């Protein structure tokens, strides 16, 4: 019989996720409510994951209409859908084998989708060219990252490969490192200065790691998750220079690039900065950038659609990357359609343009409003401070607990912010993600909350959280 002792030790080593546990408990409570169990609240508000549809944000109409028409081509000839939707579906289907979403596409993605994405990147980066051959369409950014790690990490035993990883960082990335037997080399982001990335800290982390692993990859998240920090061009250039000097492969997770809402911030891609740094860097620094249809205004997490753009990868290595992705056969086709639309949205003059633009604007306005409102309310609570993030769909407030809370938590064998989160869920039906999931400086505590949710849900959530927080803090005085 296969027991714990005879399975992959790397799988055993994957740390359990408290967020997943809380999310599961939230689901249980929801079921209990449906069965009529009495609770001090009538519904569960789950803001623990970066999933905007979960709490009621609506999908973008054009995306769903095109997918529906591709699924059911009879719709292409009916008046139920606008003409540009029908045309787009027709074009997309024409490029699929057998004109069906049910066929496999090429392993790296349907060529027209690769092309759309390449053109999107080129436009985004002010003309810095992107080639479809360097774009791999994957089943979500998580799969893209897994693929990259698999190519990069030899896994042959000591010395183990190290990946420089920001702290705080989202949990599933650290789980991925554990799964692949890769050593996480943490570099602390500076909370006092708005979660900036400091090169000295990168240098320190790298230096300290050299004794116990072979550091090879530098993972950056920009805009940050959970922090929402947006790197300046200068900061990006410094990181690129550092990666070049230290011969590190740059892994740039840029899935929140469409969610910049800070007044003084602008998303600039790593690739663009690399290119603008000139030949010495732009022709040698190896990099992969990851994006997805899960975040931003589309929020299509369930479709599992993402891509990676490879930069300066040897032509001798590329075939292996292609073969490796070939073993997944292809990325899900509905997701590829969503990516195509993300890369090539309706244009002025198109029948759906006005509605599309209005919907996207409304989502963006909701996000801006919610971030400000959440920051304002949370920052005003005693024992809580909340920075205003520049991007992303979360707020990441810091909790200052009375020492008794820490003691109580210690006795229960959990982090104080996990204790807080569990109590919050049971008492108020609000599910958040505890800071211990993300890594944080010793003795500090945080929560992560998704705020890309309907505004009235946000208000209700903040009301419950405020009430709970004041009660909780009072309990320990």
């Amino acid at each position: 019989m296969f027991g714990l002792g005879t399975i992959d030790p790397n799988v055993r080593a994957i740390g359990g996720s408290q967020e997943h546990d809380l999310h599961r408990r939230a689901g249980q409570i929801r079921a209990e409510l449906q069965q009529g169990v009495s609770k001090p609240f009538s519904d569960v508000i789950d803001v623990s994951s970066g999933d905007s549809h979960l709490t009621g944000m609506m999908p973008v109409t054009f995306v769903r209409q095109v997918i529906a028409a591709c699924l059911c081509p009879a719709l292409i000839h009916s008046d139920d859908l606008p003409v540009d939707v029908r045309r787009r579906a027709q074009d997309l289907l024409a490029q699929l084998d057998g004109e069906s979403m049910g066929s496999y596409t090429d392993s790296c993605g349907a060529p027209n989708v690769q092309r759309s994405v390449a053109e999107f990147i080129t436009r985004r980066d002010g003309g810095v060219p992107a080639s479809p051959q360097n774009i791999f369409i994957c089943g979500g950014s998580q799969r893209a990252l897994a693929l990259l790690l698999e190519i990069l990490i030899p896994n042959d035993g000591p010395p183990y490969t190290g990946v420089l990883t920001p702290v705080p960082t989202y949990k599933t990335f650290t789980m991925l490192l554990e799964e692949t037997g890769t050593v996480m080399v943490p570099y602390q982001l500076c909370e006092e200065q708005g979660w900036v990335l400091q090169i000295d800290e990168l240098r320190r982390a790298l230096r300290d790691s050299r004794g116990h692993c072979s550091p090879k990859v530098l993972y950056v998240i920009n805009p940050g998750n959970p922090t929402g920090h947006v790197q300046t061009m200068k900061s990006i250039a410094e990181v690129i220079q550092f990666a070049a000097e230290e011969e590190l492969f740059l892994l740039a997770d840029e899935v929140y690039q469409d969610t910049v809402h800070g007044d003084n911030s602008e998303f600039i891609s790593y690739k663009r900065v690399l290119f603008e740094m000139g030949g010495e860097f732009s022709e040698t620094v190896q990099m992969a950038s990851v994006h997805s249809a899960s975040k931003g205004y589309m929020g299509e997490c369930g479709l599992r659609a993402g891509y990676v753009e490879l930069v300066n990868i040897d032509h001798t290595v590329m075939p292996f990357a292609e073969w490796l992705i070939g073993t997944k056969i292809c990325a899900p086709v509905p997701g590829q359609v969503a990516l195509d639309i993300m890369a090539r949205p309706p244009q002025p003059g198109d029948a759906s343009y006005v509605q599309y633009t209005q919907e996207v604007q409304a989502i963006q306005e909701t996000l801006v409003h919610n971030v400000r409102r959440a920051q304002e309310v949370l920052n005003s609570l005693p024992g809580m401070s909340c920075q205003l993030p520049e991007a992303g769909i979360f707020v990441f407030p810091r909790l200052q607990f009375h020492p008794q809370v820490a003691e109580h938590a210690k006795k229960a064998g959990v982090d104080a912010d996990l204790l807080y989160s569990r109590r919050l869920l049971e008492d108020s039906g609000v599910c958040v993600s505890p800071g211990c999931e993300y890594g944080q400086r010793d003795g500090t505590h945080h929560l992560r909350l998704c705020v890309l949710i309907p505004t009235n849900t946000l208000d209700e959530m903040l009301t419950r959280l405020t009430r709970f927080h004041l009660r909780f803090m009072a309990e320990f005085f």
Partner: protein
Amino acid sequence: MSENGVASRRGKVLTLDTMNPRIKRVEYAVRGPIVQRAVQIEKELKEGAKKPFTEVIKANIGDAHAMGQQPITFFRQVMALCAYPELLNSSQFPEDAKNRAKTILQSCGGGSIGAYSASQGIEYVRQDVARYIEKRDNGIPSNPDNIYLSTGASDAIVTTLKLLMCGEGMSRTGVMIPIPQYPLYSAALAELGAVQVDYYLNEERCWSLDVSELRRSLEAARKHCNPRVLCIINPGNPTGQVQSRECIEEVIRFAAQERLFLMADEVYQDNVYADGCQFHSFKKVLFEMGPQYSDTLELVSYHSTSKCYMGECGFRGGYMEVINMDAEVKAQLTKLVSVRLCPPVPGQVMMDLVANTPQPGDPSHSTFIKEKSATLNTLAERARLTEEILNTVPGIQCNPVQGAMYSFPRITIPERAVQKAKEKGQAPDMFYCMNLLEETGICVVPGSGFGQKEGTYHFRMTILPPTEKLKILLNKLKEFHLRFTQQYS
């Protein structure tokens, strides 16, 4: 040394030498060099190049829709309604499709297929899958908690293999796979650094699985690794063999005796054509053999939305059912799948539709039955046609295509051609298939990509091209083979 000294020190991080060496051993013949050449030829034809044929006939990949098979109307209607619920107000969709879509959407987070689902898959879907399995297996209970939805069956298979990898050198997990096999298995084993343990199917006996061969293979493997897993593909790919009930019982007895973990790839379970053949799930047989086996044998069975009568490959829908897995190991499996967040929700919805089809009395029932039967009957007809025509060719021997979607005929290649192939550095059947492609535009996959007994040659072709085109393909193949044999005699 350049001005700042940086450029001269800097080498590329990711090179052939520094990348994961296991990747170098990964090959997936179904999309290998022959397909690349086929795509090139298609381009050349489009650009007006003159060739002895006007189109490439792709009989290499088990993709039914690519070859013109039509989707099941009801499935696509429900999917469209789930994608764009506004259509619930349209008169174009039948009531049962609408009701189904509503139920499915209620089971999705926020009522949207765009929300993440639980990592193990939407509970409602797993419940439907469990009921499907129970119905299929004469009422033997299935627990939704043992069902893991996945991104196609391939994903579930690789996840299972990953879970079971441990040990080094002599104690490294060995995985027994059939030869010939579906090359996903060898690719996955290479990726995971597992030891591949081959057991040969018996071509003379219609590709049957002999326990004596299993035993031989296992004993040989024990000398250099720890063989703990036995993979079975039933119905077979590429062989098309449908295992008899007796055979399945023998395999189960063998696995129980030798304490092997059984992985049963059953994605072609509805593709059974030959008279006298019937699909028996490993789970059903296991439980009908009584608690002596069903209480202890570790079994995982796999299914998918990609094959059978629906052919919905692009949705990447699938599941695995785990039986008798150690509870702690199962918890690890649950944790492992959570690292990928969740399987694609459209694929999960498709799996639900496959598990729970229109019932008698439902508005869509008769159309559904008509479409399903038509597709399966056509496939059966093509299976028969393929075997019949290929067996008229001297030098080609084709076992009956009892099930699945492929034919794996054995070809006699003249010695001079074998030599020519060696000179080119190609496997002889690759040389044969390349010539076939260049002369006729027919794209099939050489048997060397699937594994075969030393000194034998095969190719795998699908039975998916529309019947008229298939006839053309088979006749061209016949002509080619005679020509080729002549040319190299």
